[in-house]
């Protein structure tokens, strides 16, 4: 493939028409640059959305009680009701497709938590074992709340890593230590990590039943959450509707009453956002491609001019015995060379800008909602390169065909 003569000629024409070549190359580089920037931003948006959903399992549904706003079966609106511990077990047993279900009890107010001489303030929540799947939590030390804790209302606590930092000296093992929460002693049995934001690791988890006793709440719970396994969005919506009906019958509120019950379907929301950003991404590709097409048309145009300039030379070559293939190859190669070099510069520049933005977002601690870690993945880079070669070839092909079709008689007469 390496052919000094061909390259010598290509470089000669490029050198002879520096400005023209530069302008064309610039339009291609610009096209690729824009495409890369757009795609990087697209990835950033997508990651931003995914990041915002990382707190909890994507396939989770959460339910909390509200206040009725519609009259129902003779009952006045404005009635309050609350969820009970057994509801989450009912949901798990009666609704098909529920994978993990848990209830949560929010111990209201700030709690001063003490370990020896250290004091700090954290949220305290009563939870059941399945919570770890729904909140995306994993024990890093010891264990999570288990069924036995729940059954015997043990005074045990599982604490977030931030709680460990706040209460214990560096390097100290919190497992087995007793901490004081509002005057009640709890034994630390585990430390968890949450995939979500930092605040999620500033919680102290105690068994649901213990919390209910400690706060004299009987069997009230504040939130019920469950995951839907690998159900589709449609199936998850059906499951949420089923839950609403089940609870409306039990607690007697109108199933159409939007304020009597709050049901958040994470999967539905996530899918909505995902589709939205998929659309955005597709749109960005389209804009990028059109920008590249403008560049390609530029290359094609310059190639036509090059061929017009060199008609006579093409005629000579043909008279000397150049086969049509070699003429096509000559111009195709020039076109691919310009697109490839220019495109590569655009690609590198685009990646540099994206990487800089990524660095700057972290370095200056910019908290942009729905935007995080813009990046060009290998696939996109490879696609862009393939696109460059293909478009370079496309840009050169028609002019090259025209060159090969040059009539030597006409070309040689061309003064």
């Amino acid at each position: 493939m390496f052919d000094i003569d061909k390259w010598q000629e290509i470089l000669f024409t490029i050198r002879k028409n520096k400005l023209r070549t530069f302008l064309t190359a610039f339009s291609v580089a610009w096209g690729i640059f824009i495409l890369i920037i757009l795609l990087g931003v697209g990835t950033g948006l997508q990651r931003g959305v995914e990041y915002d959903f990382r707190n909890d399992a994507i396939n989770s549904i959460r339910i909390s009680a509200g206040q009725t706003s519609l009259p129902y079966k003779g009952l006045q609106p404005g009635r309050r009701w609350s969820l009970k511990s057994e509801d989450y077990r009912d949901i798990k047993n009666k609704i098909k497709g529920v994978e993990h279900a848990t209830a949560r009890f929010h111990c209201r107010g700030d709690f001063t938590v003490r370990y020896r001489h250290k004091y700090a303030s954290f949220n305290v929540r009563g939870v059941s074992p399945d919570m770890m799947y729904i909140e995306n939590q994993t024990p890093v030390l010891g264990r999570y709340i288990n069924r036995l804790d729940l059954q015997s209302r043990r005074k045990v606590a599982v604490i977030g890593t931030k709680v460990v930092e706040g209460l214990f000296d560096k390097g100290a093992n919190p497992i087995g230590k007793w901490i004081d929460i509002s005057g009640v002693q709890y034994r630390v049995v585990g430390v968890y990590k949450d995939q979500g934001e930092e605040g999620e690791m500033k919680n102290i988890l105690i068994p649901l039943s213990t919390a209910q006793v400690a706060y004299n709440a009987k069997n009230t719970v504040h939130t019920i959450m469950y995951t839907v396994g690998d159900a589709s969005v449609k199936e998850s919506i059906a499951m949420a509707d089923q839950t609403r009906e089940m609870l409306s019958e039990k607690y007697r509120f109108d199933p159409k009453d939007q304020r009597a019950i709050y049901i958040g379907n994470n999967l539905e929301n996530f899918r909505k956002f995902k589709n939205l950003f998929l659309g955005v991404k597709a749109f960005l590709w389209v804009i990028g491609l059109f920008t590249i097409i403008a560049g390609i048309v530029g290359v094609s145009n310059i190639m036509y001019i090059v061929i017009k300039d060199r008609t006579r030379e093409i005629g000579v070559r043909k008279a000397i015995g150049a086969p049509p293939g070699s003429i096509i190859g000559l111009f195709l190669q020039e076109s691919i060379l310009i697109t490839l070099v220019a495109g590569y510069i655009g690609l590198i520049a685009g990646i540099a800008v994206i990487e800089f933005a990524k660095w700057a977002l972290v370095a200056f601690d910019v908290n942009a909602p729905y935007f995080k870690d813009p990046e060009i993945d290998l696939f996109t880079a490879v696609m862009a390169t393939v696109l460059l070669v293909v478009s370079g070839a496309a840009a050169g092909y028609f002019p090259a065909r025209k060159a090969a079709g040059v009539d030597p008689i006409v070309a040689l007469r061309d003064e």
Partner: protein
Amino acid sequence: MIYLHKITKSYEAGGHSLQVLKDVNLEIEKGELVSIMGSSGSGKSTMLNILGILDKYDSGTYSLNNTLIKNLSERKAAYYRNQFIGFVFQSFNLLSFKNAMENVALPLYYQKVGRKKRNMKALEYLDMVGLKDWAHHMPSEMSGGQKQRVAIARSLISDPKVILADEPTGALDSKTTMEVMDIFKEVNRKGITVVIVTHENEISELTDRMIFLKDGRIIQKAMANAS
């Protein structure tokens, strides 16, 4: 070497066809030095293009070096041009970005001869036309006569059967014209058929045989003289 039988060629122009060549019969033997003469519009350029496999003819038979030249594909035509024919043009047609040696070597490039070997052979042919010392000069640094000698070297390097020269001295002064003609004669002495298209009598008189074209037909020498 060259055999034309009842060759006709017409061009479409402005809705009606113009017959440029009318039943041309011509035979040129191997080793002949021939000139084709005629005024503009006589069909001599068309004839040269057909001889050079640059243009197709409508009917008749053309064979070159015992090979029938008819309905060839572009690729085949290019191959035969490369193998059989060496072209010399009025305006030299050297490639401006290649030096003399590279210009001479160009036909061998299309025969896929290696760069080193091509350039060595090109130097030999440049030596033959007396321009060995100019091998690394660009065409723009040469005089018209020198350029034409480079062009002749280029036409010879592929060892062609026929040299087709189209007004090869049209752009040269009388002194260099003679030099160039001397080279053609020298080439011819080595047994290569040379066909020169010209409208200058001084040139054609230096050839072995003159062929006159008028209105698309070959006419007898006597008639040509009479006119």
